[in-house]
């Protein structure tokens, strides 16, 4: 089944994904929008990284850059992206097409929008398999059936013939996952895969992803605005704000001792169970900056309780607090870092 592509022989030891100094600017509108500003990341093989942030933080843009899904005419990308040792930004059209869906594949937030409405879901999976692997239609069909069983779609044979609009939200997202896994990719990119789902369905999908990850040894980048979802699936968390990673570390560290004021505020502003009745939520004043008109220094400085003039002057470097914990904040270096976080 797994016809060996030359892809699989390349650099098995290389990290699953490396992003270096990624900048993405959208030039379609009146003034250029700097959606991603100098993002660097490394994803080890078999690791799950959650990229969290609010809308407009650049998390989805970063994720889509890994497959170069942005419209080329309206997008400037600079920096370096490597997936399993392959330089993504250097690929030509046909290499890129062979790479997408085969080495790295993607799960979208709204499967109803991300699946072609006029093809049955089975056909869409079979199409993907036959695009990348030399098999007969019958073999591809059999593989699609197996995938459906793997993502636990009940009565899979019947569901293969269904169209996207005939399925429930949870089933559609399972189809999306099956589609993403169709050609045994090494890297799975998940763009808010559970945001549109109901609570009881969301947890099923999260646990399914976690299970598939460990069973298939997948490397996953998981984009979400929901910290809870990130905690359920991720080994590591990177927090994004205004197109930059402001803090990065393993899940426990980020949850227990966040060091960047934005991460702290984000964790504190959540309504949660341990909150005393009638107490007020901690809030972040103001609004995220305009990406077409970013301030020179730390983008969070205008909303930050700890910011001083130094924060507003020049770009802030990422500070390594431990070898595995980094924060983009001048104040973390100082003697008494802003304390906080929820224990």
């Amino acid at each position, binding site marked *: 089944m797994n016809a060996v592509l030359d892809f699989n022989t390349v650099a098995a030891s290389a990290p699953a994904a490396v992003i270096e100094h990624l900048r993405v600017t959208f030039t379609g509108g009146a003034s250029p929008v700097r959606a991603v500003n100098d993002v660097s990341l490394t994803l080890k093989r078999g690791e799950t990284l959650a990229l969290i942030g609010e809308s407009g933080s650049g998390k989805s843009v970063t994720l889509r850059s890994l497959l170069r899904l942005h419209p080329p005419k309206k997008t400037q990308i600079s920096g370096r992206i490597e997936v399993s040792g392959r330089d993504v930004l250097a690929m030509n059209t046909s290499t890129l097409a062979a790479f997408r869906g085969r080495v790295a594949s993607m799960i*979208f937030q709204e499967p109803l929008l991300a699946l*072609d409405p006029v093809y049955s879901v089975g056909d869409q999976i079979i199409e993907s398999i036959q695009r990348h692997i030399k098999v007969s239609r019958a073999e591809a069909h059999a593989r699609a059936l197996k995938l459906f069983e793997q993502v636990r779609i009940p009565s899979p044979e019947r569901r293969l013939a269904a169209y996207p609009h005939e399925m429930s939200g949870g089933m559609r997202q399972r189809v999306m996952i099956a589609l993403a896994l169709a050609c045994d990719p090494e890297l799975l990119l998940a763009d808010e895969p559970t945001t549109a789902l109901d609570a009881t369905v969301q947890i099923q999908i999260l646990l399914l992803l976690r299970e598939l990850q460990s069973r298939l040894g997948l490397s996953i980048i998981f984009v979400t605005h929901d910290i809870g979802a990130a905690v359920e699936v991720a080994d590591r968390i990177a927090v994004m704000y205004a197109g930059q990673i402001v803090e990065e570390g393993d899940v426990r560290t980020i949850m227990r001792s966040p060091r960047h004021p934005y991460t702290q505020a984000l964790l504190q502003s959540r309504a949660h169970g341990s909150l005393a009745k009638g107490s007020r939520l901690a809030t972040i004043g103001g609004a995220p900056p305009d990406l077409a008109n970013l301030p020179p220094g730390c983008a969070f400085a205008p909303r930050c309780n700890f910011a001083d003039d130094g924060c507003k002057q020049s770009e802030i470097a990422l500070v390594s607090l431990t070898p595995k914990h980094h924060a983009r904040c001048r104040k973390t270096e100082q003697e008494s870092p802003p304390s906080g976080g929820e224990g």
Partner: protein
Amino acid sequence: MILFILRRLLLAIPIMIGVALVCFSLVHLAPGDPLVSVLPPDASADLQKQLRTLYGFDRSLPEQFVGWISRAVTGDLGTSIASSRPVTAEVMKAVKNTLILAAFATMIGFFFGSLFGFVAGYFRDTFVDKAASFLSVMGVSVPHYWLGMVLVIVFSAQLGWLPATGMGSGGSANWAWDWEHMQHLILPAITMSVIPMGIIARTVRALVADILSQEFVVGLRAKGLTDVDVFRHVVKNVAPTALAVMGLQLGYLLGGSILIETVFAWPGTGFLLNSAIFQRDLPLLQGTILVLAIFFVLLNVLVDILQTTLDPRITRG
């Protein structure tokens, strides 16, 4: 699906009755006595009365309507006042000729319309798009009867390549699949194709642009499909609507052929209508319009059913 077809047909019945009512009213909208054109000016009162009874004009309007429509259902649309021949036979022969012209025009229009539409939609906001869009605006803006004249001036009067009028040599009113008749078809068919070309091009452009901006196209690229594969998906998404528009255009051409048929002296329904109007041949006018409108209603039903069959979102939703 069968339920749907049944429902669609049932829905068409009240519309057809309404259509019949409008056609019937046309005669009574007309100023003056409907008999005036057949009666000799010095006709005796007796003859007038006789003819009035013959054409049924002496009965009450509802009676006339019921009588007319029940005969129409059996295929009897009365007798032409001018030619004294049965209206049904005259109309059906003309419909056949118009259908040939309209079908060719629709095919030409659909081919070029889709071509321009796809090109414009794919290269949105580029020069190519602007050029293709300009052509389609021209298509819907040109007075086609004038275009017909211009084509006759250029290709018949000046160059002498093609015949200017008629369906065949010597005023032939019987179609045959030979080069002689085809030559006569070329100019009117091209003239007629301009409007559907423009409309189909604009529709397809909007559809293609809309589809290309949808998330599932990103999804298709994300799974590694090439531009050719994506194009196939786009076509399948566009097809139901584009074909529906084409079907409707065929209907419009069938009913709207009068100006072009007049320019090219094509012996179809438009030509018939023209002579019916100017000879004040009311039964013929009524019958022709009724047949064309019923054709149009049925074509609408057919198009709806076709679109529903092609589009899984409607069929199974």
